[in-house]
């Protein structure tokens, strides 16, 4: 049993700290000096932010920034425990699926006063990104740092062998009934141990050498962000009644259940690996090793997918749905200030710097991710192009406004605690898609 007494003490301390800092960003002369801690989870972005930190210290010699990177799997646990024990970082990279829980426990500093005082131009960011970080209380809890969309990474050599041209791969269609040309391509790209393709007679679905579509997991935690949300969204389905701050989930809807049923059927047909075989496996690495022909994934993975030596990589837009359009979840990260920080002024200054073109241009030049600021975002696309990577499959979603926002609601951790086992059961064929209705009732009971 953990020492819960300590939590109580820390909680009290955090509340004290909150009230002490309530005076806005001008209070406390010394709080704009010293070392501040900054955390992020993506190792690919670490060099860019270390450069930003060095530049920041050059401009503000009184403040140094210690940048710490922790992998996604441990990141949130560490942040939560740090908040409870009073050792959380002053500033950290925040995620839309997580920040409502931080707001509920009053762990974040509102940035409105600082934004007004320092004239931060919120229109410089890509449309909608800044507003994602406004809580239900109308206050702003983060400044946008980057955004991501979803596209199909595919193995060009395999596609050519299967007789699929880049044009065909770039104009796939999908519907929940027969999967459209997307399923045909997936079937064609699946090859069994005897060299038979998924759409050929005699295909052995129990001995597959190359899967048409790679499967990392059921992706329930982020509402199917990179796995199936780009399909379900084309049916007109939305995860919640409204976004942000919806209070009713829609997993009982026929449209999403049809989408998931179709998706799960790929495993049954042998076109996608069984869920049980992917536990502990890294989907990107399996793709890199030639075990899958297509992986749908987010733009933050471009660096990793282009990094596999000897693999001719193609990037195609997500398939168009029944409405004739394609769709991608749009996720925007931001940097937030922890309410328990002892150096609030310095922390806010650093967040403003992270949200400025000075830092985001540096990030853009590394070609790892798309910064939130429009001009920096364009620079990133150029940097990718200079490396020989065509990222238009990702950027077209923003240009053509075919994005939808990652659902932001309260109780996110509890929702994923219910939805993940439920979704896993469907994907692994243990339960029909209609079983999601029961899970949905459990989820909605959280909001009553």
């Amino acid at each position, binding site marked *: 049993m953990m020492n819960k007494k300590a939590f109580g003490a820390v909680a009290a301390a955090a509340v004290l700290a909150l009230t002490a800092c309530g005076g806005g960003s001008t209070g406390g002369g010394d709080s704009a000096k010293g070392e501040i801690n900054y955390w992020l989870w993506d190792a690919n972005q670490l060099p860019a932010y270390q450069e930003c930190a060095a530049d920041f210290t050059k401009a503000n010699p009184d403040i140094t920034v210690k940048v710490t990177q922790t992998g996604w799997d441990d990141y949130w*646990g560490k942040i*939560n425990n740090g908040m409870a024990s009073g050792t959380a970082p002053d500033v950290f990279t925040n995620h839309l699926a997580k920040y409502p*829980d931080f707001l509920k*426990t009053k762990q974040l500093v509102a940035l409105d006063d600082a934004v007004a005082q320092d004239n931060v131009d919120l229109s410089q960011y890509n449309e909608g990104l800044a507003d994602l970080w406004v809580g239900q209380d109308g206050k702003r809890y983060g400044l946008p740092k980057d955004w991501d969309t979803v596209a199909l990474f595919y193995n060009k050599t395999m596609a050519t062998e299967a007789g699929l041209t880049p044009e065909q791969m770039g104009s796939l269609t999908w519907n929940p009934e027969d999967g459209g040309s997307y399923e045909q391509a997936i079937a064609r790209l699946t090859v069994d141990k005897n060299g038979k393709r998924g759409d050929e007679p005699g295909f052995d679905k129990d001995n597959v050498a190359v899967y048409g579509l790679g499967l990392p997991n059921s992706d329930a935690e982020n509402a199917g962000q990179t796995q199936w949300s780009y399909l379900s969204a084309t049916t007109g389905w939305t995860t919640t009644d409204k976004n942000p701050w919806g209070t009713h989930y829609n997993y009982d809807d026929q449209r999403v259940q049809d989408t998931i049923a179709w998706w799960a059927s790929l495993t049954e047909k042998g076109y996608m690996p069984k869920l049980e075989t992917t536990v*502990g*496996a890294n989907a990107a690495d399996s793709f890199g090793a030639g075990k899958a022909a297509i992986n749908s994934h987010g733009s933050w993975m471009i660096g990793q997918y282009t990094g596999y030596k000897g693999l001719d990589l193609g990037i195609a837009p997500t398939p168009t749905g029944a409405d004739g359009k394609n769709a991608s979840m749009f996720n925007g990260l931001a940097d937030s200030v922890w309410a328990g920080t002892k150096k609030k002024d310095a922390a806010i200054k650093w967040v403003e710097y992270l949200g400025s073109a000075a830092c985001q241009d540096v990030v853009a030049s590394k070609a790892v991710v798309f910064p939130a600021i429009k001009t920096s975002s364009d620079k990133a696309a150029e940097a990718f192009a200079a490396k020989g990577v065509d990222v238009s499959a990702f950027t077209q979603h923003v240009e053509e406004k075919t994005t939808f926002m990652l659902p932001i609601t309260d109780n996110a*951790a509890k929702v994923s*605690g219910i939805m*993940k086992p439920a979704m*896993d059961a469907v994907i692994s064929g243990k339960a029909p898609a209609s079983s999601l209705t029961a899970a949905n009732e459990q989820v909605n009971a959280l909001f009553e």
Partner: protein
Amino acid sequence: MTTLAKHERPAPLGSGMPAGRGGPRKRGDLKVALLFIAPALIGFVLFYLVPTIRGIYLSFTEYSILGEPEWIGTRNYERISQDPLFWNALGVTGQYVIINIALQTTLALGLAILMHRVAKSTIIRGALLMPYLMANVIAALLWFWMLDYQIGIVNQLIEWIGLPRVAFFGSEQWAIPTQALINTWRHMGYTALLIFAGLQAIPHSVYEAASIDGSKAFSTFRRITLPLLRPVLVLVLVVTVIGSFQVFDTVAVTTAGGPVNATRVLQFYIYQRAFNEQDFGYGSALAVILFLILALVAFIQMKFLRGNQSDLD
């Protein structure tokens, strides 16, 4: 039976130590005794008693680390009784405990007898303890990697001898037995050592008498070794059963409760509710239930297996 007197095992706490009772020295002894007990007592009160009492209190509240716990009476317990995941956790944990204990005790007993009769070398005896010296998490990750469906060496071997690959961690049937086997592997050396110590405490004269009476090896084992080992076996069982019920780290670093709910053991479910979902009241109530289960199991074991009595007297 004077030769056996020195093998008498000191009875556990509270069953009466005649020497040093009463008399004028009592008060002086108490001060010294308290001084010596103090470090352990402070640790016990600070890290066990206070958190336990607070945990019991929190189990009657709604509490999310921050803010004040709100008293809600027995509502957490009512919710738990209707929580399918709790009953699932109980079943899964039970399955784990049974596999782990049955295998571990049998293997450890075999190993202990081998240590006693055959492997006299300290190096070999020491080597049996090696897995236990490895941190739980390291052992779990090592096996996670070796048993991986795609790249694990074990599955390469399985395929090489012509059998289909096994999703050790990914399939619902295999996930719990796999975790139990890993922990059996890690702990059996230590358990064997405990039993080995018990074997050494059985006087040689008993075996001599048996062999004079013409007893065969197996019958000697069944009629002499096992009965005389009982107190040690009970201790081993109580300790390993309690340890098994609290399985957490292996699950946390490998399957994290999945696939679906196949490895959502009680301790992991407590962690999930309290730390991931910030429902510390509910988590505490689950922890209290686990505490009660363990107390009951330990009581039953001690009572019916007469763990605090020896047949050597």
